[in-house]
């Protein structure tokens, strides 16, 4: 490769690094994204100027970029902030599929050349990770979009099945070294990899999706790096490994926030253990209140902490929450938001939703910052969250969420829980918070409930 191209690819890699670095503060983040985009533009232009064209390739390349750009623009403009996990899942999948198609074309392109070298190995690894990323992401998307059930789908002996599948994939790969002029074997290989991706994600429950999305994010980076090895391309290798590292860190943050190992999430022990605990429907008594009760409670409160969860996202209640916040702040009350790392369906999901509603990000505190504040809090308002405030995580050793760090809402003077009904949440766990003497339940859609509380407060004052 010419020196000038190497330098240009290197510059684009540096721009990616700077762009990601600028994401470390909300003040510089938006410019950082532009910096990364500039890096991408340089990489694409460099590639376009380094290759030889014929008429066919010109048509293919420019129509592809144009159509992809338009489709991307439409998706990006249309998607709702509540659906960001789905969007990221789909995009991970697209990246994975693109990489495995590239790897497959390289096989067709250079028949008989599979041998024991870095290029061939990268091609095979790209096919494996790319296909798993694609089918896993699509399965995750279907779950998030509730097109298939979000509950874990448990196939008997699934872990042995997956292991067997993985071993046969590795076997097939070794076989390709011996017999690479047979394209049929690659079709079998790709189908097996696609099946593996589906089987890995199917048993994982909706509440564990943040982990899966972060992990697949990481895969989409690693596969880009392997694509880089196929073409000995610096920009692909560097940016791919940056993304790979990013996804791995997010995965670790998520599993830590649930006090579980990655193996535990992927092997899917979660759904299996919850079945039993959800069957014992509790006959404990709880207090349910009207929006007026809660309005007057808030009227006499000074310090308020809001704990948003996925229910807020489902009800699209973020803008209503902002209205309530404005009313309370006007009455000179201190309102902050407690964000658990696994609230929502992907890392940082709640933060984006509240930012969308124009809520100052400095009011959003994470687990470590906020937990000491509950003891000085008059009211904790839990909106569509369950597991992240469930004291069973501390007290009940048999609980599947035992050991998960939680938000200590029970330390505040009173608790308000906005919930659709008394049905246990996504994980199917009962929550002692609901039966606490300090707790008032307000049933209904989160958005309607918040709106009616806001109305009550306005009428009171």
């Amino acid at each position: 490769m010419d020196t000038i191209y190497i330098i240009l690819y290197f510059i684009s890699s540096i721009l990616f690094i700077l762009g990601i670095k600028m994401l470390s503060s909300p003040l510089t983040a938006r410019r950082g994204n532009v910096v990364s985009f500039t890096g991408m533009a340089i990489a694409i232009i460099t590639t376009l100027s380094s290759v030889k064209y014929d008429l066919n390739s010109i048509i293919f390349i420019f129509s592809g970029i144009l159509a992809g750009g338009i489709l991307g623009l439409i998706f990006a403009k249309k998607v709702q902030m509540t659906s960001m996990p789905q969007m990221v899942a789909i995009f991970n999948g697209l990246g994975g599929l693109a990489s495995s198609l590239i790897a497959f074309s390289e096989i067709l392109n250079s028949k008989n050349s599979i041998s024991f070298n870095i290029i061939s190995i990268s091609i095979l690894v790209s096919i494996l990770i790319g296909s798993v990323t694609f089918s896993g992401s699509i399965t995750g998307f279907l779950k998030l979009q509730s097109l298939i059930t979000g509950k874990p789908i448990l196939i008997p002996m699934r872990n042995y099945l997956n292991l067997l599948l993985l071993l046969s994939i590795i076997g097939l790969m070794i076989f390709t070294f011996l017999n690479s002029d047979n394209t049929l074997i690659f079709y079998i290989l790709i189908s097996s990899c696609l099946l593996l991706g589906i089987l890995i994600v199917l048993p994982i429950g909706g509440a564990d999706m943040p982990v899966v999305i972060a992990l697949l994010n990481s895969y989409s980076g690693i596969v880009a790096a392997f694509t880089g090895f196929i073409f000995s391309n610096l920009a692909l290798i560097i940016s791919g490994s940056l993304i790979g590292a990013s996804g791995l860190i997010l995965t670790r943050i998520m599993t830590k926030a649930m006090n579980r190992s990655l193996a535990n999430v992927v092997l899917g022990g979660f759904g299996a253990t919850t079945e039993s605990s959800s069957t014992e429907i509790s006959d404990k008594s709880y207090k349910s209140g009207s929006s007026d009760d809660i309005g007057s409670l808030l009227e006499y409160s000074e310090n308020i902490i809001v704990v948003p969860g996925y229910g807020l996202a489902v009800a699209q209640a973020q803008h209503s929450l902002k209205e309530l916040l404005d009313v309370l702040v006007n009455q000179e009350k201190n309102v902050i938001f407690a964000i658990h790392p696994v609230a929502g369906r992907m890392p940082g999901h709640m933060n984006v939703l509240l930012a969308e509603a124009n809520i100052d990000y400095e009011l959003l505190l994470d687990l470590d910052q906020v937990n000491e504040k509950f003891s000085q809090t008059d009211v904790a308002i839990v909106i569509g969250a369950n597991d992240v405030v469930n004291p069973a995580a501390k007290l009940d050793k048999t609980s599947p969420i035992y050991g998960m760090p939680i938000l200590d809402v029970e330390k505040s003077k009173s608790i308000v829980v906005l919930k659709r009904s008394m049905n246990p949440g996504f994980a199917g766990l009962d929550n002692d918070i609901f039966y606490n003497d300090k707790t008032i339940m307000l049933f209904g859609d989160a958005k309607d409930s918040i709106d009616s509380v806001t109305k009550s407060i306005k009428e009171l004052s």
Partner: protein
Amino acid sequence: MNNELYLILIFIMAMLLGYELIKKIPPTLHTPLMSGTNAISGIVIIGSILVITNSSDLTVNILGFISLLLSSINVFGGFIVTDRMLEMFKKPKKKGDK
């Protein structure tokens, strides 16, 4: 062989660098981080271009075209949606009476 060795070393260094960089990103920006890295993983668009231009075989070209289309969606969609999100993270103007 040496060339390949360098590439592997670069891969490892970039992973370590990525680890240090991303560790410092606050949880509040994790969603934009994911969609932003998503956009960057569209860099495989380079691979698609190389596939198309390296071959005159129609099947290969079509596969290359599909992967080019997908990775362009990734690139443009990813950067635009990230920008849309980050725009919301501006500091809301303080309303005078506090």
